[in-house]
């Protein structure tokens, strides 16, 4: 038998809904389906098999290949291959996704490897943002470089980096205020922060509970500022995982870590088995 257009069109909705129900953004789900279509159309297969199973296997294969690419890079290796100490890591993302908490977790990881870490608070806007990072610093025994509310976020980051150079820190982790990817002024501010600091690595933090908005957030942050890697948070909230597929399909950027809770230890390296078990399993 072979898969003809009519058969494919009849069955594709089932696959599309499967992806969407698992939180893959609609646009990406449609794109994935059309790629599978061009691969499978007129391909011959065993009479004893069902067409829908051929489609499902092809989808599974696509997802595994895609996610394997996202899982293959190592954050620490990338850091040392792209710069020299003090490395600077800029954290960006939408409001409330978990940037500040993730920075604290990564600081904990760095410290446990023996790195001298400096935290920098370039969120000079949101209520309690500076106190929040200071408290993390105190709990972790890591210094926090900060100015007052209303200070220029780019200046905080730049001066923190200069301070890190003189004091011989290994890495500076820079927090920024959460922002709407469609706020022109805030995205312009972020471009300036990026230009002034010129970080070794930019990390986009995304909420694994988010739906279609993951598509728009990743696109706008990539187009306006760019990012080198992604960290997904709140994976412990019984998420479907489709958000990871959305970003991996859009950009060949690594998913460095997954946030799996609110404690400092709750940050794990992205491993494809996680997705295979929750989503494809």
């Amino acid at each position, binding site marked *: 038998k072979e898969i003809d257009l009519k058969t494919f069109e009849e069955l594709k909705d089932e696959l599309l809904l499967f992806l969407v129900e698992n939180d893959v953004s609609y646009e990406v789900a449609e794109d994935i389906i059309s790629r599978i279509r061009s691969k499978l159309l007129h391909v011959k297969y065993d009479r004893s098999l069902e067409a829908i199973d051929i489609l499902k296997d092809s989808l599974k294969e696509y997802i595994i290949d895609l996610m394997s690419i996202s899982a293959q890079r190592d954050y620490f290796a990338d850091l040392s291959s792209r710069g020299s100490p003090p490395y600077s890591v800029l954290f960006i993302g939408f409001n*409330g996704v978990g940037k500040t908490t993730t920075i604290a977790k990564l600081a904990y990881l760095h410290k446990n490897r023996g790195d001298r870490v400096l935290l920098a608070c370039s969120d000079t806007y949101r209520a*309690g*943002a500076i106190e929040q990072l200071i408290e993390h610093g105190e709990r972790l025994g890591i210094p926090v470089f900060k100015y007052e509310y209303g200070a220029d976020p780019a200046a905080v980051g730049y001066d923190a980096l200069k301070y890190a150079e003189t004091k011989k820190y290994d890495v500076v982790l820079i927090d920024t205020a959460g922002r709407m990817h469609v706020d022109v002024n805030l995205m312009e501010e972020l471009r300036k922060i990026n230009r002034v600091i010129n970080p070794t690595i930019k990390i986009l933090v995304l909420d694994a*509970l988010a*739906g279609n908005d*993951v598509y728009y957030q990743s696109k706008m942050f990539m187009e306006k500022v760019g990012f080198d890697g992604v960290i997904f948070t709140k994976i412990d909230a019984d998420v479907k995982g489709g958000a990871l597929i959305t970003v991996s399909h859009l950009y060949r950027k690594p998913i460095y870590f997954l946030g799996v809770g*609110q404690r400092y230890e709750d940050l794990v390296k992205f491993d494809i088995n996680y997705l295979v078990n929750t989503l494809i399993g």
Partner: protein
Amino acid sequence: EISERLKKAIERIKNRVYIDEKSLNEVLREIQKALILADVNVKIVFELTNRIKERFETEKPPHELTIKEYIIKIIFDELVKILGEEKNELIITKKPFKIMLIGLEGSGKTTTVAKLAYYYSQKGYKVGVFSTDIHRPAAIDQLEQLTSQIKNVLFIDTKNEKNVNKIIINSLNKLNKKIDIILVDTAGRHKEEKSLLNEMKLIEKILKPDFTFLVIDATIGQKAYDQAKAFHDTVKIGGIIISKMDGTARGGGALSAATATGAKIYFIGTGEKIRDLEEYDPYSFVGRLLG
């Protein structure tokens, strides 16, 4: 744009007296796509379009409406039946009226507490505010800074108290008889964090809120239903506030949460400032939901 395709599908049926199965299914499919793009839970989307189809096929349209106007009316009716058919207003029935805010991590609770404090103080109420969030670093600082800019709002500082029981009892004691409305912030939590769900149950038991708002982030995806259901199974939810509607997300999670809890939408968060709170309006919300 989704609303263009939906409009076109509806246009195709507008001049007909009788609408065939194919055209109706076309319209329903466009609605499904619009709602899925808006992040409404897929199961709810299909339940909804099945109900719309059934009503269209069994009910007699009022003769003053065209076929097109009638199908639009059914779609609108079925959506607002879940979300709220009119501006939902919270009636302050006693004094002090205690309002608790709950929700997932980062959904916008603390910011929304400050927005509600501003909203009610503008209406002339004397407002008291405190936080039971003993988990998040500087949670109390955040609420303190947000409310410091609001007149007629009394903020109770609970920074050094780590016992939720004591925080509630001491704060309620400190809020004098002149306070009309008490707003209480809680820590973020999700359905897998069982000890936090128990804490929320305990907070409800001691505080005895007169009304509880579930704050939902407009960007939430398919898990909105399950998460809202877990909150609903733990405490009594009176209403829903959907935050971060000033972005690209259309807030379908609100529909899923309303379905799971039976609660209606009361307010929409449209920015980070304390003034960025709008009252729910069925027409604008449904219009936005459908694209």
